[in-house]
């Protein structure tokens, strides 16, 4: 047997070091585990400070003993490489493991073991843990705000339709692929806008919209059988004619008034709320702020002084004011500048305000990408005879936008998490509804559950977005 040197473990006495080390580490973890889960302190016979640090010391020595380079054991090597490279890392690893073990029992007991979910009143919440009954009872309000219960199918249907129309791009055949960009940039936002503002909002105006949809659907279906030569004229003339026919000939207003077609009940935007409002606000702000930001970033680099200074002014102004004041202004000041008989809905004003605000940030992010491109790309595009727009659309922007995907994702995430601020104008999305619910006299004292619930929802949304942006990055990676 070789000489043992516990200060410098080596390969010759691998087994001795390994067993001693593993036993020490296991012992240290076991002590902490017992202490944390069963509240038993098996080393309490030792003086206070020693018994407090003993697991750490034991584990530290154990990790030191198993730190053997090129031991030949794959598992041991990977542990050493990842969490046990030197004394300091070993110490940090131990500390993290202990903190996790220590914090598991209280978390588990609050979330699951001592929590209540049964029943439908505050009285069932007797345990010391969370009261999920509260979330269960208020769930509907957290999702839909003050929207009438009987009409909530409209929100569900709209979101399902929008999700369907949004994912349709993934199933497009080769033939339609080239129209996808046009669809997502120009057609989809308009459809979404009408869907939400006329379908969810309801009222007589919805009928105008429904004629439009019917006209569009019929003409698209017929459109497939039209020779491509006439397609352009067809798509300009036929939908409009159909719309006019529907509106004035087939379903004229008297029919509605006679009650033969019942209009959707009108729900004012002030009653919208909850998670669905979070979605609506985030969705529209995202699709509006991106193009605005794009044009501002191009404008800032323009050679024409008017465009350039206008863009700089816009960007610096919106970046320079706090969002909360912008929202406040949009609701209080803005209507004063409008003519008396003109009315713009509160929600629309808020969406415009947030879009402009975030557009300034998007603009600067995109400008960063534009500046990262070498001048040679511009030269090459110009030398091939491309003008400003062709050069930017075909060569510059595809590369610049690819570069700034992480930055844009950052801005968008911030936007989603900024939406709760719309409470200043009286719109209650999910966090607003939480604040409302926690002050309800029947349900006082459950703020914690509410905020945890909201955090989890926001985390799911934001994590999905960040994952998606990461996938985009991978998808458009062409270098190497």
């Amino acid at each position, binding site marked *: 047997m070789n000489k043992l040197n516990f200060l410098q473990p080596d390969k010759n006495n691998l087994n001795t070091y390994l067993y001693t080390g593993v036993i020490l580490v296991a012992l240290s973890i076991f002590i902490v585990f017992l202490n944390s889960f069963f509240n038993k302190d098996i080393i309490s016979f030792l003086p206070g400070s020693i018994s407090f640090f003993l697991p750490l010391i034991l584990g530290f020595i154990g990790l030191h003993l198993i730190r053997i380079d090129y031991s030949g054991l794959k598992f041991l090597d990977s542990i050493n490489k990842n969490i046990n490279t030197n004394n300091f890392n070993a110490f940090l690893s131990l500390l993290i493991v202990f903190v996790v073990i220590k914090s598991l029992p209280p978390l588990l007991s609050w979330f699951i073991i001592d929590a209540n979910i049964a029943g439908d009143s505050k009285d069932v919440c007797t345990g010391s843990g969370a009261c999920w009954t509260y979330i269960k009872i208020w769930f509907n309000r957290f999702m839909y705000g003050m929207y009438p219960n009987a009409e909530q199918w409209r929100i569900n249907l709209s979101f399902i339709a929008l999700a369907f129309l949004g994912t349709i791009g993934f199933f497009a055949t080769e033939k339609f692929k080239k129209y996808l960009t046009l669809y997502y940039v120009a057609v989809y936002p308009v459809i979404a806008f009408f869907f939400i503002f006329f379908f969810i909002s309801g009222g007589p105006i919805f009928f105008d919209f429904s004629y439009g949809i019917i006209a569009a659907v019929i003409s698209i279906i017929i459109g497939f059988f039209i020779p491509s030569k006439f397609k352009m004229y067809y798509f300009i003339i036929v939908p409009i004619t159909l719309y006019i026919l529907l509106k004035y000939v087939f379903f004229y207003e008297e029919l509605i008034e006679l009650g033969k077609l019942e209009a959707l009940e009108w729900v004012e935007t002030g009653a919208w709320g909850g998670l669905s409002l979070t979605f609506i606000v985030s969705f529209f702000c995202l699709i509006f702020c991106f193009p605005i930001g794009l044009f501002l970033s191009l404008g800032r680099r323009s050679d024409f002084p008017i465009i350039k200074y206008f863009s700089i002014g816009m960007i610096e102004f919106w970046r320079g004011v706090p969002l909360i004041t912008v929202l406040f202004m949009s609701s209080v000041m803005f209507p004063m500048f409008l003519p008396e008989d003109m009315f713009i809905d509160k929600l629309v004003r808020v969406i415009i305000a947030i879009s402009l605000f975030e557009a300034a940030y998007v603009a600067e992010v995109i400008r960063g990408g534009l500046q990262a491109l070498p001048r040679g790309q511009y030269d090459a595009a110009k030398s091939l005879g491309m*003008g400003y727009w062709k050069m930017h659309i075909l060569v510059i922007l595809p590369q610049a936008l690819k570069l700034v995907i992480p930055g844009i994702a950052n801005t968008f995430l911030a936007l989603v998490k900024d939406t709760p601020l719309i409470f200043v104008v009286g719109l209650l999305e999910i966090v607003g509804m939480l604040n409302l619910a926690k002050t309800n006299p029947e349900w006082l004292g459950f703020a914690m559950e509410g905020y945890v619930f909201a955090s989890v929802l926001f985390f799911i949304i934001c994590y999905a977005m960040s994952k998606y942006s990461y996938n985009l990055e991978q998808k458009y990676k*062409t270098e190497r």
Partner: protein
Amino acid sequence: MSDKIIQITEMNKWFGDFQVLKNINLEVEKNKKIVVCGPSGSGKSTLIRCINRLEEHQQGSIIVDGNELTEDTKDIEKIRAEVGMVFQQFNLFPHLSILDNCTLAPIWVKKMPKKEAEDLALQHLEKVQIADQANKYPGQLSGGQQQRCAIARALCMEPKIMLFDEPTSALDPEMIKEVLDAMVNLAKAGMTMIVVTHEMGFAKEVADEVIFMDEGMIVERAETKEFFANPKSDRTKLFLSQIL
């Protein structure tokens, strides 16, 4: 018949206070191959960048194929489409495949149908011998292959004039030959070419005339044989003694 495709008269250009080009007078006839040489910073690159107005000149006139280059930029895109350019750093579009690099401008600038543009591109890629790489991305190709692709891309616009801005300076010696071969073939096919290069072997092989520039001026312009056999100015002699 002397058919002048490029006419530069009394052209001056400044970068700020610094005058890069002084009193340039240059006429290039159709189908001529001209090599421009000279030390770094002598204004060679700026001169040919002025010809398709990637740089603006401040004085004098440049007439390309009967159109004068002026402040009015409406026609400039038309002129640029007729003047192909190959850069030192290749400047391929990294987000597009080799084939798409070549078809992009014909499809969007010349409104050529996609099928036709692809056939044309493959034909030119075949000429520079990289047709087999058509579906790769620029980042996957060697420097020499990228530069040949850049030549093919410029040719796809079917230009009347080709400008080369030190096309081999960023390449390692083994790749220089494959690019020069492509250029020699192009020259033999009768293209009007202006080439900024330090490759004197190439100049001797294909150039009709050689221009020597120094400090923003054209110091000497002569037939190729004459230029190498008995240069007139002392500056040219010094330059040639160092480079050959």
